[in-house]
């Protein structure tokens, strides 16, 4: 894989809880980026969102982090990062991306002598097709942030089921402009297992075995996460991005 651009994939999200589907995203994305002939994937990062995000049913980040770590214990290239969840307030995706990008670059420069600019790993955002649709939600994203996430860094978007990310790109001038920075990965297996479904099954006392790693299921049981009560948490709370007025940059 000589001459290829080293690449790190960053997945932001609730991971409430992490499932095999999440981990599949990384596997699919890596295969796809390798097959372009241009990239060499050198790392993957799972970055669970902070509690202040205010999403309904979101359990404490310490649990979500612990479960993600259990799930990724056996992975030799994907790891969990708690920087985002440790920030005082909800942190915009672009801010998280900048942090990791700078961190990776600094690590690289400190280990190479002399450093070659072209060898510094790039960072791209890994996401599912549903994520593309969130750009349309009013006030959820700042335009300049979307510009930076897509235009400066780039997206690797894994499609799922009937969701068509092509359409989301087509319907957005901004996304269309940066079409070349968006890598669409087709998940041919029709698989709609989601964290939402997992939480639903757990609430109803149904088995979720084989949807998540056993270690995560054990953790959920031990800590009695995901009940009727946990699901109504943040019910009347507005999603933090909709209320936060960021003047930074």
């Amino acid at each position, binding site marked *: 894989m000589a001459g290829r651009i080293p690449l790190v994939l960053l997945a932001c999200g609730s991971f409430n809880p992490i499932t095999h589907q999440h981990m599949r995203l990384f596997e699919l994305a890596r295969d796809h980026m390798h097959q372009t002939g241009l990239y060499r994937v050198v790392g993957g990062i799972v970055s669970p969102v902070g509690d202040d995000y205010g999403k309904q049913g979101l359990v404490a980040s310490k649990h979500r982090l612990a479960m993600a770590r259990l799930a990724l214990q056996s992975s030799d290239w994907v790891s969990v990062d708690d920087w985002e969840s440790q920030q005082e307030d909800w942190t915009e995706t672009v801010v998280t991306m900048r942090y990791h990008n700078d961190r990776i670059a600094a690590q690289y420069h400190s280990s190479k002598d002399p450093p070659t600019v072209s060898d510094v790993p790039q960072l791209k955002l890994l996401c599912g097709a549903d994520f593309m649709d969130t750009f349309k939600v009013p006030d959820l994203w700042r335009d300049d942030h979307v510009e930076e996430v897509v235009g400066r860094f780039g997206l690797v978007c894994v499609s799922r089921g009937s969701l068509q990310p092509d359409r989301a790109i087509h319907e957005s001038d901004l996304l269309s402009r940066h079409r070349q920075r968006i890598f669409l990965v087709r998940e041919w297996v029709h698989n*709609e297992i989601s964290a939402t479904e997992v939480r639903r099954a757990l609430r109803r006392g149904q088995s979720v075995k084989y949807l998540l790693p056993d270690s995560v299921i054990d953790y959920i049981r031990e800590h009695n996460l995901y009940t009727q009560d946990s699901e109504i948490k943040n019910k009347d709370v507005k999603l933090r991005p909709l209320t936060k007025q960021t003047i930074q940059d």
Partner: protein
Amino acid sequence: MSMATSNWQLFGYQHSLQYRFLFNRRKKFIQVWNNMRMRRYRVVKGIISPVGDGYKKKGLIEACHRLEMARLATLNSDWITVDDWESQQLEWVETAKVVRHHAEHISSENNNDEVDTVRCGKRRKLGQNTIICQSSSYINPKEDTPHLNLLCGADVLESFGVPNLWKPEDIEEIVGRYGVACITRYGSDPEKFINQSDVLYKHRKNIHMVREWVTNEISATHVRRALRRGQSVRYLLPDPVVRYIQEHSLYSAESEQKNADAVLAPLQRYTSTN
């Protein structure tokens, strides 16, 4: 929690068309378990029975590998086991015979269980020193013999209509004498198919439909295709199975051509006897 009025054993027929990979199959077991539990049945056991090599399905690799992968996949299950009787027979065995074999086995086991049957598991060695734990927590050792149901997807039920694939008397036996637990996909209409078949309609009370509301179509075909193309199948199958496949270099373009010119065993058998 209310106790079951009867004990059920779920029997999963390892139809080579789809069930060579266990991951998806195991999920189906769990779905049926959830569903049957709600209907006051207690599922006490699940059996995975890989088909023999004599089935001659295209791309079917040796039974010894398929058995071992199934065992690796079910290591962490306390109620699903793998059985090699079917695959050890010299020729392909009809499903009805396999179901019959297991039903008779359960029956004789139940009759012999006077001292052993208690709450904890019962250990039994099987074949290559693989210890399989059979959790039969009967309350009363002399209770009814567990019922046996064939576990399958809707496609198997619908395959009853394919000419020369099934013997009519076999279908009658499976559905009439034993019963079927059938997982259906969101969007399909199994009741319609039952309605259109006289034999299925007659025994509709023995057909337990389990709706899969959340689509999950990881198929063995897809997994084999990904493997041929050097793509990752991690998190589609259990890690030990992925490792086994890598260690033995299973599933290549070559393996997929196996039996390419052969006729599927049931088609051969029933066509020639007509």
